[in-house]
Protein backbone atom coordinates (compact mmCIF):
# COMPACT_ATOMS: atom_id res chain seq x y z
CA UNK A 1 0.00 0.00 0.00
CA UNK A 2 1.46 3.33 -1.01
CA UNK A 3 1.57 6.05 1.62
CA UNK A 4 0.93 8.59 -1.13
CA UNK A 5 -2.72 9.63 -1.30
CA UNK A 6 -4.73 7.49 -3.70
CA UNK A 7 -6.05 9.15 -6.82
CA UNK A 8 -9.62 10.27 -5.93
CA UNK A 9 -12.42 8.61 -7.83
CA UNK A 10 -13.49 11.87 -9.49
CA UNK A 11 -10.10 12.18 -11.22
CA UNK A 12 -10.34 8.60 -12.42
CA UNK A 13 -13.79 9.29 -13.84
CA UNK A 14 -13.02 12.59 -15.53
CA UNK A 15 -9.50 11.49 -16.53
CA UNK A 16 -7.63 14.26 -14.68
CA UNK A 17 -9.68 17.08 -16.29
CA UNK A 18 -9.80 19.18 -13.12
CA UNK A 19 -6.14 18.83 -12.14
CA UNK A 20 -3.84 21.79 -12.78
CA UNK A 21 -0.43 20.41 -11.81
CA UNK A 22 0.12 16.87 -10.54
CA UNK A 23 2.21 13.73 -10.70
CA UNK A 24 0.33 10.44 -10.68
CA UNK A 25 2.39 7.51 -9.46
CA UNK A 26 1.44 4.11 -10.87
CA UNK A 27 2.81 1.34 -8.68
CA UNK A 28 2.44 -2.30 -7.76
CA UNK A 29 2.23 -3.80 -4.29
CA UNK A 30 5.20 -6.18 -4.49
CA UNK A 31 7.41 -4.12 -6.76
CA UNK A 32 10.72 -3.20 -5.04
CA UNK A 33 11.37 -0.41 -7.51
CA UNK A 34 8.03 1.20 -6.68
CA UNK A 35 9.02 1.33 -3.02
CA UNK A 36 12.20 3.21 -3.96
CA UNK A 37 10.38 5.50 -6.38
CA UNK A 38 7.88 6.35 -3.67
CA UNK A 39 10.69 7.62 -1.43
CA UNK A 40 11.98 9.80 -4.25
CA UNK A 41 8.50 11.23 -4.81
CA UNK A 42 8.12 12.00 -1.13
CA UNK A 43 11.40 13.92 -1.19
CA UNK A 44 10.30 15.76 -4.33
CA UNK A 45 6.93 16.57 -2.83
CA UNK A 46 8.48 18.09 0.30
CA UNK A 47 10.30 20.58 -1.91
CA UNK A 48 7.40 21.14 -4.35
CA UNK A 49 4.27 21.37 -2.16
CA UNK A 50 2.24 23.00 -4.91
CA UNK A 51 2.50 19.91 -7.12
CA UNK A 52 -0.28 17.48 -6.27
CA UNK A 53 0.85 13.90 -5.82
CA UNK A 54 -1.43 10.88 -6.25
CA UNK A 55 -0.88 7.14 -6.34
CA UNK A 56 -2.63 4.49 -8.39
CA UNK A 57 -2.40 0.77 -7.66
CA UNK A 58 -1.73 -0.44 -11.18
CA UNK A 59 -3.41 -3.77 -10.56
CA UNK A 60 -6.66 -2.13 -9.44
CA UNK A 61 -6.94 0.19 -12.43
CA UNK A 62 -6.17 -1.69 -15.66
CA UNK A 63 -8.40 0.75 -17.57
CA UNK A 64 -6.12 3.70 -16.70
CA UNK A 65 -3.05 1.74 -17.67
CA UNK A 66 -4.61 0.88 -20.99
CA UNK A 67 -5.61 4.47 -21.65
CA UNK A 68 -2.07 5.67 -20.95
CA UNK A 69 -0.35 2.68 -22.62
CA UNK A 70 1.46 1.81 -19.39
CA UNK A 71 2.89 -1.69 -19.39
CA UNK A 72 5.37 -1.52 -16.51
CA UNK A 73 5.69 0.25 -13.17
CA UNK A 74 6.83 2.45 -11.53
CA UNK A 75 5.39 4.93 -14.00
CA UNK A 76 4.81 8.63 -13.48
CA UNK A 77 2.13 10.53 -15.38
CA UNK A 78 2.65 14.27 -15.36
CA UNK A 79 -0.59 16.30 -15.53
CA UNK A 80 -0.88 19.96 -16.44
CA UNK A 81 -4.17 21.79 -16.82
CA UNK A 82 -6.18 18.62 -17.22
CA UNK A 83 -3.86 17.07 -19.81
CA UNK A 84 -1.42 14.19 -19.47
CA UNK A 85 1.67 15.87 -20.88
CA UNK A 86 4.27 13.20 -20.21
CA UNK A 87 4.48 9.59 -19.03
CA UNK A 88 7.74 8.16 -17.70
CA UNK A 89 8.43 4.55 -16.76
CA UNK A 90 11.39 3.48 -14.60
CA UNK A 91 13.39 4.78 -11.68
CA UNK A 92 14.65 8.29 -11.26
CA UNK A 93 16.75 9.73 -8.48
CA UNK A 94 15.71 13.03 -6.88
CA UNK A 95 18.04 15.02 -9.09
CA UNK A 96 16.72 13.37 -12.26
CA UNK A 97 13.10 13.85 -11.20
CA UNK A 98 13.71 17.51 -10.42
CA UNK A 99 15.34 18.05 -13.83
CA UNK A 100 12.62 16.05 -15.59
CA UNK A 101 9.88 18.09 -13.95
CA UNK A 102 11.66 21.35 -14.73
CA UNK A 103 11.93 20.38 -18.40
CA UNK A 104 8.16 19.97 -18.86
Amino acid at each position, binding site marked *: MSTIIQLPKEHVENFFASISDAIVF*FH*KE*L*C*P*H*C*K*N*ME*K*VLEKFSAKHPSVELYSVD*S*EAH*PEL*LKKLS*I*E*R*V*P*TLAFIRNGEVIKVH*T*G*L*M*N*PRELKAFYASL
Partner: protein
Amino acid sequence: MPRKNIKNVLFIMLDTLQFNYLGCYGNKEVKTPNLDKFAEKGFLFENAYSEGLPTIPVRRALMTGRFTLPYSGWRPLTTEDTTITDMLWCREVQTALVYDTPPMRLPKYGYSRGFDYVRFCNGHELDHETFSNIHLDDKFKGEDFLSPEWLKKNADGEYDESSKSLIRETECYLRQRQNWQSDADNYASVVISEADSWIKEKRDPNRPFFLWLDSFDPHEPWDPPSVWEERPCPYNPDYKGNPLLIAPWTEIDGVMTEEECEHIRALYAEKVTLVDKWLGKLFDSLKAQGLWEKTMIVVTSDHGQPMGNDEHGHGLMRKCRPWPYEELVHVPLLAHVPGLEGGKRIDSFVQNVDITATILDALGLTESHALEETGHEGINTFDADDLQGMSLLPLMRGEVDKIRDFAIAGYYGMSWSIISHDYSYIHWLQREIDTDSMNKIFYDGSGSGGNAGEQSAKLEVKEEMWTCVPGAEVSVPQSDELYDRRSDPFQLTNIIDDNPEKAKEMLQKLKLYIGELRTT
Protein backbone atom coordinates in the same frame (compact mmCIF):
# COMPACT_ATOMS: atom_id res chain seq x y z
CA MET B 1 39.29 17.80 14.25
CA PRO B 2 40.86 14.39 13.63
CA ARG B 3 39.79 11.58 15.94
CA LYS B 4 41.72 11.36 19.18
CA ASN B 5 45.11 9.65 18.67
CA ILE B 6 44.76 9.56 14.89
CA LYS B 7 46.89 12.09 13.09
CA ASN B 8 47.54 10.34 9.79
CA VAL B 9 45.93 7.75 7.56
CA LEU B 10 47.78 5.17 5.48
CA PHE B 11 45.52 3.31 3.09
CA ILE B 12 47.10 0.24 1.53
CA MET B 13 45.44 -1.30 -1.51
CA LEU B 14 46.96 -4.61 -2.59
CA ASP B 15 45.45 -5.47 -5.94
CA THR B 16 44.20 -9.04 -6.44
CA LEU B 17 44.92 -10.23 -2.89
CA GLN B 18 42.53 -13.10 -2.35
CA PHE B 19 41.39 -13.20 1.28
CA ASN B 20 41.81 -16.94 1.79
CA TYR B 21 45.50 -16.87 0.88
CA LEU B 22 46.24 -15.08 4.17
CA GLY B 23 47.01 -16.91 7.39
CA CYS B 24 44.77 -14.57 9.33
CA TYR B 25 41.84 -15.68 7.11
CA GLY B 26 42.59 -19.33 7.82
CA ASN B 27 45.19 -20.32 5.23
CA LYS B 28 47.57 -22.90 6.70
CA GLU B 29 50.17 -23.00 3.93
CA VAL B 30 50.87 -19.53 2.63
CA LYS B 31 53.22 -17.60 4.89
CA THR B 32 51.97 -14.10 5.71
CA PRO B 33 53.40 -13.47 9.18
CA ASN B 34 53.33 -9.67 9.01
CA LEU B 35 49.72 -9.32 7.96
CA ASP B 36 48.76 -12.06 10.44
CA LYS B 37 50.39 -10.09 13.25
CA PHE B 38 48.82 -6.87 11.99
CA ALA B 39 45.40 -8.56 12.10
CA GLU B 40 46.03 -10.14 15.47
CA LYS B 41 46.80 -6.80 17.08
CA GLY B 42 44.29 -4.81 15.09
CA PHE B 43 40.92 -5.46 13.46
CA LEU B 44 39.99 -8.10 10.91
CA PHE B 45 36.74 -7.89 8.96
CA GLU B 46 35.42 -11.37 8.23
CA ASN B 47 32.81 -10.32 5.71
CA ALA B 48 34.18 -7.51 3.56
CA TYR B 49 33.03 -7.36 -0.06
CA SER B 50 33.86 -5.20 -3.03
CA GLU B 51 30.67 -4.10 -4.75
CA GLY B 52 31.30 -3.17 -8.43
CA LEU B 53 34.07 -5.24 -9.98
CA PRO B 54 36.91 -5.11 -10.90
CA THR B 55 39.96 -2.74 -10.69
CA ILE B 56 38.56 0.56 -11.92
CA PRO B 57 35.05 0.49 -10.44
CA VAL B 58 36.62 -0.53 -7.11
CA ARG B 59 38.96 2.45 -7.22
CA ARG B 60 36.03 4.73 -8.02
CA ALA B 61 34.00 3.32 -5.11
CA LEU B 62 36.95 3.90 -2.78
CA MET B 63 37.69 7.37 -4.09
CA THR B 64 34.08 8.55 -3.91
CA GLY B 65 32.60 6.51 -1.05
CA ARG B 66 29.74 5.70 -3.41
CA PHE B 67 28.53 2.42 -4.87
CA THR B 68 29.23 1.91 -8.56
CA LEU B 69 27.25 -1.24 -9.33
CA PRO B 70 23.89 0.45 -10.02
CA TYR B 71 25.41 3.28 -12.03
CA SER B 72 28.42 2.48 -14.21
CA GLY B 73 31.41 0.19 -14.71
CA TRP B 74 34.92 0.60 -16.10
CA ARG B 75 35.04 4.30 -16.88
CA PRO B 76 37.04 7.46 -16.14
CA LEU B 77 36.31 9.72 -13.22
CA THR B 78 34.15 12.62 -14.31
CA THR B 79 33.44 16.01 -12.80
CA GLU B 80 30.28 14.44 -11.36
CA ASP B 81 32.47 12.21 -9.18
CA THR B 82 33.55 13.89 -5.98
CA THR B 83 36.66 12.11 -4.73
CA ILE B 84 38.31 11.91 -1.36
CA THR B 85 40.99 14.27 -2.68
CA ASP B 86 38.27 16.76 -3.61
CA MET B 87 37.03 16.50 -0.05
CA LEU B 88 40.53 16.94 1.35
CA TRP B 89 41.30 19.92 -0.88
CA CYS B 90 42.47 23.00 0.98
CA ARG B 91 42.69 21.26 4.30
CA GLU B 92 45.57 20.77 6.65
CA VAL B 93 46.09 17.16 5.62
CA GLN B 94 48.61 16.54 2.83
CA THR B 95 47.73 13.82 0.35
CA ALA B 96 49.91 11.41 -1.58
CA LEU B 97 49.40 8.57 -4.03
CA VAL B 98 52.25 6.13 -4.51
CA TYR B 99 51.22 3.41 -6.96
CA ASP B 100 52.08 1.04 -9.75
CA THR B 101 48.53 0.12 -10.72
CA PRO B 102 48.46 0.84 -14.46
CA PRO B 103 44.69 1.19 -15.01
CA MET B 104 44.73 4.04 -12.47
CA ARG B 105 47.59 5.64 -14.33
CA LEU B 106 45.94 6.28 -17.71
CA PRO B 107 45.73 10.09 -17.62
CA LYS B 108 42.33 10.20 -19.31
CA TYR B 109 40.92 8.06 -16.53
CA GLY B 110 41.89 10.62 -13.91
CA TYR B 111 42.31 8.26 -10.99
CA SER B 112 45.39 10.04 -9.67
CA ARG B 113 43.70 13.41 -9.59
CA GLY B 114 43.93 15.75 -6.70
CA PHE B 115 46.77 14.21 -4.71
CA ASP B 116 49.43 16.68 -3.57
CA TYR B 117 52.13 14.14 -4.40
CA VAL B 118 51.89 11.45 -7.06
CA ARG B 119 54.53 8.82 -7.78
CA PHE B 120 53.90 6.10 -10.34
CA CYS B 121 56.28 3.15 -10.58
CA ASN B 122 56.48 1.76 -14.10
CA GLY B 123 56.31 -1.67 -15.58
CA HIS B 124 53.41 -3.67 -14.15
CA GLU B 125 50.80 -5.42 -16.27
CA LEU B 126 49.28 -3.01 -18.85
CA ASP B 127 52.24 -0.66 -18.38
CA HIS B 128 54.71 -3.34 -19.51
CA GLU B 129 55.01 -1.85 -23.02
CA THR B 130 56.98 0.99 -21.45
CA PHE B 131 59.95 -1.38 -21.62
CA SER B 132 59.33 -2.94 -25.02
CA ASN B 133 62.30 -1.21 -26.67
CA ILE B 134 64.93 -2.28 -24.16
CA HIS B 135 67.36 -4.90 -25.49
CA LEU B 136 66.60 -8.36 -24.17
CA ASP B 137 69.57 -10.61 -23.49
CA ASP B 138 69.56 -13.56 -25.89
CA LYS B 139 69.44 -16.04 -23.04
CA PHE B 140 65.89 -14.92 -22.16
CA LYS B 141 63.08 -16.17 -24.36
CA GLY B 142 59.39 -15.56 -23.69
CA GLU B 143 58.53 -19.13 -24.66
CA ASP B 144 60.63 -20.44 -21.75
CA PHE B 145 58.35 -18.66 -19.27
CA LEU B 146 55.05 -19.93 -20.66
CA SER B 147 53.47 -23.32 -21.14
CA PRO B 148 54.30 -24.67 -24.63
CA GLU B 149 50.74 -26.01 -24.74
CA TRP B 150 49.30 -22.47 -24.81
CA LEU B 151 51.34 -21.40 -27.82
CA LYS B 152 49.80 -22.33 -31.16
CA LYS B 153 51.32 -22.06 -34.60
CA ASN B 154 49.44 -21.48 -37.84
CA ALA B 155 49.90 -23.34 -41.14
CA ASP B 156 53.02 -21.29 -41.96
CA GLY B 157 54.69 -22.39 -38.75
CA GLU B 158 54.33 -18.94 -37.15
CA TYR B 159 52.78 -18.31 -33.78
CA ASP B 160 49.17 -17.17 -33.99
CA GLU B 161 48.20 -13.69 -32.81
CA SER B 162 47.23 -14.60 -29.27
CA SER B 163 50.44 -16.62 -28.80
CA LYS B 164 52.51 -13.70 -30.13
CA SER B 165 50.74 -11.39 -27.75
CA LEU B 166 51.50 -13.64 -24.75
CA ILE B 167 55.16 -13.93 -25.76
CA ARG B 168 55.47 -10.18 -26.33
CA GLU B 169 53.99 -9.39 -22.92
CA THR B 170 56.23 -11.96 -21.24
CA GLU B 171 59.31 -10.53 -22.92
CA CYS B 172 58.42 -7.05 -21.66
CA TYR B 173 58.60 -8.46 -18.14
CA LEU B 174 61.86 -10.21 -18.96
CA ARG B 175 63.32 -6.93 -20.22
CA GLN B 176 62.68 -5.54 -16.75
CA ARG B 177 63.86 -8.65 -14.95
CA GLN B 178 67.01 -9.57 -16.88
CA ASN B 179 69.09 -7.51 -14.44
CA TRP B 180 67.26 -8.75 -11.37
CA GLN B 181 69.44 -8.54 -8.26
CA SER B 182 67.25 -9.31 -5.31
CA ASP B 183 63.61 -9.32 -4.22
CA ALA B 184 63.95 -5.56 -3.72
CA ASP B 185 63.51 -5.35 -7.50
CA ASN B 186 59.99 -6.82 -7.49
CA TYR B 187 57.07 -4.51 -8.15
CA ALA B 188 55.66 -4.66 -4.62
CA SER B 189 59.06 -4.02 -3.08
CA VAL B 190 59.64 -0.96 -5.27
CA VAL B 191 56.25 0.66 -4.69
CA ILE B 192 56.29 -0.03 -0.95
CA SER B 193 59.83 1.38 -0.69
CA GLU B 194 58.72 4.48 -2.60
CA ALA B 195 55.89 4.98 -0.12
CA ASP B 196 58.33 4.63 2.76
CA SER B 197 60.62 7.14 1.13
CA TRP B 198 57.79 9.68 0.84
CA ILE B 199 56.93 9.22 4.51
CA LYS B 200 60.56 9.46 5.60
CA GLU B 201 61.96 12.11 3.33
CA LYS B 202 59.46 13.96 1.20
CA ARG B 203 56.36 14.85 3.18
CA ASP B 204 55.96 17.86 5.44
CA PRO B 205 56.48 16.33 8.90
CA ASN B 206 54.43 19.05 10.55
CA ARG B 207 51.22 18.34 8.70
CA PRO B 208 49.02 15.26 8.97
CA PHE B 209 49.03 12.99 5.95
CA PHE B 210 46.76 10.74 3.98
CA LEU B 211 48.83 8.33 1.89
CA TRP B 212 47.19 5.98 -0.59
CA LEU B 213 49.63 3.18 -1.38
CA ASP B 214 48.30 1.19 -4.32
CA SER B 215 50.37 -1.89 -5.10
CA PHE B 216 49.33 -3.86 -8.18
CA ASP B 217 51.09 -6.90 -6.69
CA PRO B 218 50.16 -9.65 -6.04
CA HIS B 219 48.39 -9.24 -9.41
CA GLU B 220 50.03 -11.22 -12.25
CA PRO B 221 52.64 -11.51 -13.80
CA TRP B 222 53.45 -14.36 -11.45
CA ASP B 223 57.09 -13.46 -11.07
CA PRO B 224 58.12 -14.10 -7.46
CA PRO B 225 61.81 -14.47 -6.48
CA SER B 226 62.05 -18.23 -7.11
CA VAL B 227 61.57 -17.61 -10.85
CA TRP B 228 64.63 -15.33 -11.04
CA GLU B 229 66.71 -17.32 -8.62
CA GLU B 230 66.00 -20.41 -10.71
CA ARG B 231 64.92 -22.47 -7.75
CA PRO B 232 61.70 -24.41 -7.18
CA CYS B 233 58.67 -22.43 -6.07
CA PRO B 234 58.44 -23.07 -2.33
CA TYR B 235 54.71 -23.75 -2.55
CA ASN B 236 55.02 -26.29 -5.39
CA PRO B 237 58.64 -27.55 -5.37
CA ASP B 238 58.04 -30.65 -7.49
CA TYR B 239 56.62 -28.86 -10.53
CA LYS B 240 58.70 -29.72 -13.58
CA GLY B 241 57.39 -27.39 -16.32
CA ASN B 242 58.35 -23.84 -17.33
CA PRO B 243 57.72 -20.98 -14.93
CA LEU B 244 54.30 -19.55 -15.84
CA LEU B 245 54.78 -15.81 -15.83
CA ILE B 246 51.43 -15.07 -17.33
CA ALA B 247 48.47 -17.08 -18.66
CA PRO B 248 45.78 -16.48 -21.24
CA TRP B 249 42.39 -15.08 -20.20
CA THR B 250 40.39 -18.17 -20.77
CA GLU B 251 38.01 -20.86 -19.68
CA ILE B 252 40.28 -23.61 -18.42
CA ASP B 253 38.57 -26.58 -19.98
CA GLY B 254 40.62 -27.82 -22.95
CA VAL B 255 43.21 -25.05 -22.61
CA MET B 256 45.09 -25.54 -19.35
CA THR B 257 45.86 -28.52 -17.15
CA GLU B 258 45.12 -28.85 -13.44
CA GLU B 259 48.89 -29.01 -12.82
CA GLU B 260 49.37 -25.67 -14.57
CA CYS B 261 46.58 -24.05 -12.57
CA GLU B 262 48.06 -25.44 -9.39
CA HIS B 263 51.47 -24.02 -10.26
CA ILE B 264 50.02 -20.61 -11.05
CA ARG B 265 48.37 -20.61 -7.65
CA ALA B 266 51.68 -21.56 -6.03
CA LEU B 267 53.52 -18.73 -7.79
CA TYR B 268 50.71 -16.38 -6.81
CA ALA B 269 51.00 -17.54 -3.19
CA GLU B 270 54.74 -16.84 -3.30
CA LYS B 271 53.94 -13.30 -4.48
CA VAL B 272 51.54 -12.93 -1.57
CA THR B 273 54.36 -13.91 0.79
CA LEU B 274 56.66 -11.38 -0.87
CA VAL B 275 54.09 -8.59 -0.51
CA ASP B 276 53.70 -9.55 3.15
CA LYS B 277 57.47 -9.37 3.68
CA TRP B 278 57.74 -5.85 2.27
CA LEU B 279 54.70 -4.65 4.17
CA GLY B 280 56.45 -5.91 7.30
CA LYS B 281 59.39 -3.66 6.44
CA LEU B 282 57.04 -0.71 5.98
CA PHE B 283 55.33 -1.39 9.31
CA ASP B 284 58.74 -1.59 11.01
CA SER B 285 59.74 1.70 9.43
CA LEU B 286 56.57 3.41 10.67
CA LYS B 287 57.27 2.14 14.17
CA ALA B 288 60.90 3.30 14.00
CA GLN B 289 59.73 6.76 12.92
CA GLY B 290 57.30 6.97 15.82
CA LEU B 291 54.30 7.04 13.47
CA TRP B 292 52.64 3.77 14.45
CA GLU B 293 50.72 5.30 17.33
CA LYS B 294 49.59 8.30 15.29
CA THR B 295 48.59 6.61 12.06
CA MET B 296 45.47 4.65 11.19
CA ILE B 297 46.40 1.94 8.68
CA VAL B 298 43.82 0.17 6.52
CA VAL B 299 44.81 -2.78 4.34
CA THR B 300 42.49 -4.24 1.72
CA SER B 301 42.25 -5.53 -1.81
CA ASP B 302 39.97 -4.90 -4.75
CA HIS B 303 39.25 -8.56 -5.52
CA GLY B 304 40.68 -12.07 -5.74
CA GLN B 305 41.40 -13.92 -8.95
CA PRO B 306 39.91 -16.91 -10.77
CA MET B 307 42.78 -19.38 -11.13
CA GLY B 308 41.27 -22.78 -11.74
CA ASN B 309 38.28 -24.99 -11.18
CA ASP B 310 35.71 -25.02 -8.38
CA GLU B 311 36.56 -22.74 -5.46
CA HIS B 312 39.71 -21.64 -7.29
CA GLY B 313 37.80 -19.88 -10.05
CA HIS B 314 34.74 -21.77 -11.29
CA GLY B 315 36.62 -22.97 -14.37
CA LEU B 316 38.22 -19.65 -15.30
CA MET B 317 41.76 -18.36 -15.58
CA ARG B 318 41.72 -14.61 -14.91
CA LYS B 319 38.71 -12.31 -15.10
CA CYS B 320 37.41 -13.20 -18.56
CA ARG B 321 33.76 -13.54 -17.47
CA PRO B 322 31.61 -11.25 -15.31
CA TRP B 323 31.21 -13.90 -12.62
CA PRO B 324 30.98 -12.46 -9.11
CA TYR B 325 31.81 -15.59 -7.13
CA GLU B 326 33.26 -15.68 -3.65
CA GLU B 327 36.90 -16.13 -4.71
CA LEU B 328 36.64 -12.86 -6.62
CA VAL B 329 34.42 -10.57 -4.56
CA HIS B 330 35.21 -11.43 -0.92
CA VAL B 331 38.17 -9.25 0.06
CA PRO B 332 40.54 -9.02 3.02
CA LEU B 333 40.11 -5.96 5.20
CA LEU B 334 42.39 -5.24 8.15
CA ALA B 335 42.91 -2.11 10.21
CA HIS B 336 45.18 -0.68 12.86
CA VAL B 337 43.63 2.21 14.77
CA PRO B 338 45.76 4.14 17.28
CA GLY B 339 44.04 4.41 20.63
CA LEU B 340 41.72 1.45 20.06
CA GLU B 341 42.39 -1.91 21.57
CA GLY B 342 42.55 -4.37 18.71
CA GLY B 343 42.53 -8.12 18.53
CA LYS B 344 38.95 -8.15 17.24
CA ARG B 345 37.45 -10.07 14.37
CA ILE B 346 34.38 -8.28 13.08
CA ASP B 347 31.52 -10.33 11.70
CA SER B 348 29.37 -7.54 10.23
CA PHE B 349 29.07 -7.26 6.48
CA VAL B 350 30.97 -4.26 5.21
CA GLN B 351 31.63 -2.92 1.72
CA ASN B 352 34.59 -1.14 0.23
CA VAL B 353 32.69 2.17 0.11
CA ASP B 354 32.74 2.09 3.92
CA ILE B 355 36.52 2.50 3.89
CA THR B 356 36.22 6.01 2.42
CA ALA B 357 33.80 7.03 5.15
CA THR B 358 36.15 5.54 7.75
CA ILE B 359 39.12 7.52 6.45
CA LEU B 360 37.12 10.76 6.50
CA ASP B 361 35.82 9.94 9.96
CA ALA B 362 39.37 9.32 11.22
CA LEU B 363 40.44 12.67 9.82
CA GLY B 364 37.48 14.30 11.56
CA LEU B 365 35.51 15.06 8.43
CA THR B 366 32.21 13.27 8.69
CA GLU B 367 29.98 15.96 10.06
CA SER B 368 28.41 17.76 7.16
CA HIS B 369 29.42 21.17 8.50
CA ALA B 370 33.08 20.11 8.38
CA LEU B 371 32.68 18.99 4.82
CA GLU B 372 30.84 22.10 3.79
CA GLU B 373 33.71 24.24 4.99
CA THR B 374 36.00 23.00 2.24
CA GLY B 375 38.18 25.47 0.41
CA HIS B 376 37.59 29.06 -0.36
CA GLU B 377 34.34 30.87 0.07
CA GLY B 378 32.00 30.23 -2.77
CA ILE B 379 33.73 27.15 -4.10
CA ASN B 380 31.81 24.08 -3.05
CA THR B 381 33.60 20.84 -3.68
CA PHE B 382 31.44 18.40 -1.89
CA ASP B 383 27.89 17.61 -0.99
CA ALA B 384 28.05 15.60 2.23
CA ASP B 385 24.78 13.87 1.38
CA ASP B 386 26.46 12.07 -1.50
CA LEU B 387 28.50 9.62 0.58
CA GLN B 388 26.90 6.17 0.71
CA GLY B 389 29.61 4.43 2.72
CA MET B 390 29.41 4.21 6.53
CA SER B 391 32.32 4.67 8.91
CA LEU B 392 33.71 1.46 10.40
CA LEU B 393 35.04 3.22 13.52
CA PRO B 394 31.85 2.61 15.57
CA LEU B 395 32.18 -1.13 14.77
CA MET B 396 35.83 -1.15 15.81
CA ARG B 397 35.05 0.80 18.98
CA GLY B 398 32.42 -1.82 19.80
CA GLU B 399 29.60 0.75 19.82
CA VAL B 400 27.61 -1.29 17.28
CA ASP B 401 27.71 -4.96 16.29
CA LYS B 402 26.88 -4.51 12.64
CA ILE B 403 26.36 -1.86 10.00
CA ARG B 404 24.99 -3.99 7.18
CA ASP B 405 22.90 -7.18 7.08
CA PHE B 406 24.22 -8.18 3.68
CA ALA B 407 26.64 -7.16 0.96
CA ILE B 408 26.22 -6.76 -2.78
CA ALA B 409 28.72 -7.42 -5.55
CA GLY B 410 28.83 -7.76 -9.31
CA TYR B 411 29.79 -6.37 -12.68
CA TYR B 412 27.88 -3.33 -13.91
CA GLY B 413 25.33 -4.30 -16.53
CA MET B 414 26.28 -7.97 -16.30
CA SER B 415 25.76 -9.49 -12.86
CA TRP B 416 24.34 -8.58 -9.47
CA SER B 417 24.74 -10.65 -6.34
CA ILE B 418 23.68 -10.43 -2.73
CA ILE B 419 25.52 -12.15 0.09
CA SER B 420 24.03 -12.74 3.54
CA HIS B 421 25.22 -14.97 6.39
CA ASP B 422 22.91 -17.80 5.35
CA TYR B 423 22.59 -17.49 1.58
CA SER B 424 24.19 -15.97 -1.45
CA TYR B 425 22.32 -15.23 -4.65
CA ILE B 426 23.45 -14.28 -8.16
CA HIS B 427 21.17 -12.50 -10.61
CA TRP B 428 22.53 -12.55 -14.13
CA LEU B 429 22.01 -9.69 -16.50
CA GLN B 430 24.50 -11.22 -18.92
CA ARG B 431 26.25 -14.42 -17.88
CA GLU B 432 27.74 -15.76 -21.08
CA ILE B 433 30.04 -13.50 -23.03
CA ASP B 434 33.20 -14.56 -24.86
CA THR B 435 36.58 -13.33 -23.72
CA ASP B 436 37.15 -10.94 -26.61
CA SER B 437 33.74 -9.32 -26.14
CA MET B 438 34.25 -9.10 -22.39
CA ASN B 439 37.53 -7.29 -22.99
CA LYS B 440 36.03 -4.99 -25.58
CA ILE B 441 32.72 -4.22 -23.91
CA PHE B 442 33.46 -4.23 -20.22
CA TYR B 443 37.16 -3.51 -19.99
CA ASP B 444 37.00 -1.01 -22.78
CA GLY B 445 39.84 -2.71 -24.62
CA SER B 446 42.08 -1.76 -21.74
CA GLY B 447 44.69 -4.30 -22.81
CA SER B 448 45.34 -2.16 -25.85
CA GLY B 449 45.54 1.09 -23.95
CA GLY B 450 41.89 1.74 -23.27
CA ASN B 451 39.59 4.24 -24.90
CA ALA B 452 38.47 6.15 -21.85
CA GLY B 453 35.25 4.44 -21.03
CA GLU B 454 33.45 4.79 -24.33
CA GLN B 455 32.53 1.13 -24.64
CA SER B 456 31.52 0.42 -21.09
CA ALA B 457 29.58 3.67 -20.98
CA LYS B 458 27.39 2.16 -23.69
CA LEU B 459 26.69 -0.84 -21.52
CA GLU B 460 23.39 0.52 -20.32
CA VAL B 461 21.35 -1.25 -17.71
CA LYS B 462 18.05 -1.57 -19.51
CA GLU B 463 15.13 0.40 -18.18
CA GLU B 464 13.18 -2.81 -17.59
CA MET B 465 15.69 -3.60 -14.86
CA TRP B 466 14.00 -0.96 -12.75
CA THR B 467 10.41 -1.92 -13.39
CA CYS B 468 7.80 -4.62 -12.75
CA VAL B 469 4.79 -5.77 -14.76
CA PRO B 470 1.37 -5.21 -13.16
CA GLY B 471 -0.53 -8.45 -12.71
CA ALA B 472 2.52 -10.66 -13.19
CA GLU B 473 3.77 -12.98 -10.45
CA VAL B 474 7.16 -12.19 -8.92
CA SER B 475 9.31 -14.50 -10.99
CA VAL B 476 12.86 -15.68 -10.47
CA PRO B 477 14.83 -16.04 -13.72
CA GLN B 478 15.79 -19.65 -14.38
CA SER B 479 19.41 -18.73 -14.89
CA ASP B 480 19.80 -17.20 -11.41
CA GLU B 481 21.69 -19.03 -8.69
CA LEU B 482 21.17 -19.56 -4.96
CA TYR B 483 23.72 -21.02 -2.55
CA ASP B 484 23.73 -22.10 1.08
CA ARG B 485 26.51 -19.82 2.31
CA ARG B 486 27.10 -21.67 5.59
CA SER B 487 27.76 -25.05 3.95
CA ASP B 488 28.85 -23.81 0.52
CA PRO B 489 30.59 -20.43 0.84
CA PHE B 490 32.36 -20.77 -2.51
CA GLN B 491 29.10 -21.27 -4.39
CA LEU B 492 29.59 -24.66 -5.98
CA THR B 493 26.13 -26.23 -5.59
CA ASN B 494 23.20 -24.21 -6.90
CA ILE B 495 20.11 -24.94 -4.76
CA ILE B 496 17.71 -22.55 -6.43
CA ASP B 497 15.34 -25.23 -7.75
CA ASP B 498 14.69 -26.59 -4.26
CA ASN B 499 14.27 -23.19 -2.61
CA PRO B 500 12.05 -21.02 -4.83
CA GLU B 501 10.67 -18.94 -1.94
CA LYS B 502 14.12 -18.13 -0.54
CA ALA B 503 15.31 -17.28 -4.07
CA LYS B 504 12.38 -14.90 -4.54
CA GLU B 505 13.10 -13.25 -1.19
CA MET B 506 16.80 -12.76 -2.01
CA LEU B 507 16.06 -11.39 -5.48
CA GLN B 508 13.52 -8.93 -4.08
CA LYS B 509 15.96 -7.80 -1.41
CA LEU B 510 18.70 -7.36 -3.99
CA LYS B 511 16.51 -5.36 -6.36
CA LEU B 512 15.15 -3.23 -3.54
CA TYR B 513 18.67 -2.36 -2.36
CA ILE B 514 20.18 -1.71 -5.77
CA GLY B 515 17.16 0.40 -6.65
CA GLU B 516 17.55 2.30 -3.37
CA LEU B 517 21.15 3.06 -4.32
CA ARG B 518 20.04 3.99 -7.84
CA THR B 519 17.66 6.57 -6.34
CA THR B 520 20.07 8.13 -3.84
